[in-house]
């Protein structure tokens, strides 16, 4: 067992932090929240030049053949910097299903473009129920001679407004019977799509997307019909742990900011940190942070090495969802009233903590997965 990063990984971490410190300062984050697009093409290009978008892809697709562990280091730093934009949706929700399920032609058509920063992607995973259960997907992909026609409504789709393509899971039918879920790559410029922005406390942009008889050519089906469920299952642990990594990086930052603030802010003629109750709050934050670190890194390592990871991934998200909220809430208590204003940056992390908790399954969702993995048989959360 080894808990630290090796030399190469440490360099990657430090360089990523330095880059984001320069390119994604907190004022930029705030600007992007107000910005309608919430995305900066010049920054996007620079990130692509660093090889981040193609990190997981093979070299023949313009990638650098890195591991998920490498990507997780970048994601932690992105969470720390609260990087706005469609990186997660493009690389994880878009790139991973194409890499795992697409044929050679499809990979050649999309992956080099993603790696170069020319293609922005997202996935329309949830529908009106706001559920991640594949069984709840009601959208329909109706076969035509040369492709499919998509009908349905998707909710909470990240960055749909700037995406070039939206991966859309939909149900396909044969002789009137559901044939399971298939994944379609939909051209986001299609005229019969309606994209409505949601006003959310999340720092990332999310949308309500309606597909009204949207035509999808046959060669934009990822893999074959019915493979969608399996492909979503494959991308799921990467998305869940990826989110945990972003949350971990953000937690670390909140912790550092708060410990720093507690030592600078003076009341009763002393720094706040002179009071034992504040010292213990800081210790509580440190403990929650260390716990999040070991349980998340374990999940990263298992996913990255292709080991069975259902339980470890669920434990990481079940824990981190609570821990980040606890840390952010304790931070607010230490900051006092000024933390409740936009004079301090804490509120951005407080918002992220809630959004992070809710997306990709909250604590209770993942605890149910852990219970199932412990042979406490029960309903399948994600089939």
């Amino acid at each position, binding site marked *: 067992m080894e*808990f630290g990063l090796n030399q190469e990984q440490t360099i990657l971490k430090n360089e990523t932090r330095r880059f984001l410190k320069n390119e994604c300062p907190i004022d930029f984050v705030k600007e992007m929240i107000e910005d309608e697009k919430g995305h900066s093409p010049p920054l996007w290009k620079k990130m692509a030049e660093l090889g981040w978008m193609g990190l997981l892809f093979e070299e023949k697709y313009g990638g650098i053949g890195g591991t998920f562990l490498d990507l997780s280091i970048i994601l932690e730093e992105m969470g720390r910097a609260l990087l706005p934009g469609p990186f997660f949706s493009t690389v994880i929700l878009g790139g991973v299903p194409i890499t795992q399920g697409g044929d050679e032609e499809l990979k050649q058509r999309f992956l080099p473009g993603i790696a170069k920063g020319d293609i922005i992607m997202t996935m329309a995973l949830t529908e009106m129920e706001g559920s991640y259960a594949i069984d709840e997907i009601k959208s329909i992909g109706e076969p035509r001679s040369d492709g499919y026609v998509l009908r349905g409504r998707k909710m909470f789709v990240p960055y749909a407004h700037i995406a070039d393509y939206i991966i859309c899971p939909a149900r396909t039918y044969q002789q009137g019977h559901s044939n399971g879920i298939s994944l379609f790559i939909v051209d986001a410029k299609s005229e019969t799509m309606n994209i409505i922005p949601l006003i959310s406390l999340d720092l990332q942009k999310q949308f309500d997307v309606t597909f009204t008889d949207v035509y999808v050519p046959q060669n934009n089906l990822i893999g074959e019909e019915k493979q969608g469920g399996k492909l979503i299952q494959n991308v799921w642990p990467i998305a869940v742990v990826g989110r945990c990594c972003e949350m971990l990086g953000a937690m670390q930052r909140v912790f550092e900011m708060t410990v720093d603030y507690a030592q600078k802010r003076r009341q009763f003629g002393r720094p706040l940190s002179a009071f034992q109750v504040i010292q213990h709050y800081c210790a509580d934050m440190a403990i929650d942070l260390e716990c999040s670190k070991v349980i998340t890194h374990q999940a990263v390592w298992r996913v990255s090495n292709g080991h069975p990871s259902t339980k470890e991934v669920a434990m990481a998200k079940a824990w981190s969802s609570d821990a980040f909220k606890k840390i952010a809430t304790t931070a607010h208590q230490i900051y006092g009233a000024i933390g409740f204003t936009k004079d301090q940056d804490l509120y951005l992390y407080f918002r992220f903590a809630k959004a992070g908790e809710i997306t990709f399954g909250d604590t209770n969702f993942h*605890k149910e997965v852990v219970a199932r993995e412990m042979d406490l048989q029960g309903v399948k959360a994600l089939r």
Partner: protein
Amino acid sequence: MDFDFTDEQKRFREEVQDFLKSELEQGSFDPRQNSMGRGFSQEFSRKMARKGWIGLTWPKEYGGQGRSYMDRLILMEEMLRAQAPIAFHFLTDRQVGPALIHFGSEELKREFLPRIIEAEISFCLCFSEPDAGSDLASVRTTAVEEGDYYLVNGQKLWTSMGHRADYGWLLAKTNPDSNLPDHKTLSEFILDMKAPGVTVQPLINIAEVHSFNEVFLDDVRIPKKYLVGKQDKGFDQIMEQVVYERAGIERLMQNYTVREHLLEYVKTTKKNGKYLWEDPTIRNVISTLETEFNIGRLLCYSVAWTIDQGKVPNYEASVCKVFCTQYEKRLSDIATQIMGLYGQLLPGSKWAPYDGVAAESYLWSPSYTLQGGTVEILKNIIALRGLKLQTK
């Protein structure tokens, strides 16, 4: 980053498991009699000594194996999982030996280390006193130099296994100068528990167990050579050793059987025609405990890893101990709650599920977050020594 064990570590774990399996088959120990680290068997410790498992991490020049703390953790995890009787050598292996190696004179090392490593002698800790608990530096027991010995007078409290140990690891005041801060007036000694003037009286805990003792010291003569390290430096020496007391996996694993029995209970018990595991509330608390257990275990391994990197895990060990002790406290509470009316039945009672392990653990549970540094003291350490928070 690597969350797997090496092949060598896996083989070592199997070796320990095989040993324990064969000992159990031979009936060499009864796991039920050993809960909460009570199993005190010199015979069993001698068997471990023959395997080289006492002093596993000590340097080879002192008879140890020079192995990693990771290996020691694997050994301890398996011993505790099996509830093997390791109390005879537990303290000497973990604390006394390393402290002697670090601070002891060559003479003391030659006299004690071989006997520790052969499981010939056992130790207890004589640190705390009625007025020196969390504030350990305020011990009042005095050790006054007289000729070639120290004359010791005072009272010690919470001396676990004091009634069975051969020697005590004693902290006493050697400098009467009241202008000095307390922590610069203390020294460490090795105390012969059979020396004239040593009186050991039992102190029964709320689990009805005689584990603690009061130790009275009346004009006890300790030969000068039994001073450990430097005079008046005892407190600093203890602060260095105590990290290793907090670094272990025992806090997590001493209740391992409660965890196992609770799982079996919810899988096999029906209430109102339904298995307990079908209840969403129970599924939720059980998976919470499972997540916490996994985190606690990873924290223990990360402490061992830190030590193996040559660092003193002051901060890490405190984080680990706060978390693990609070986990085991919750575990005993939840286990007794889920077992319902049966959860109150103690060992020996008719109908007690799993011979009352849950109720027994619950009675012990107030001590989990107190012993070896209370949660509050540990949080002070995290904040002041780990995070180095400014106080002025």
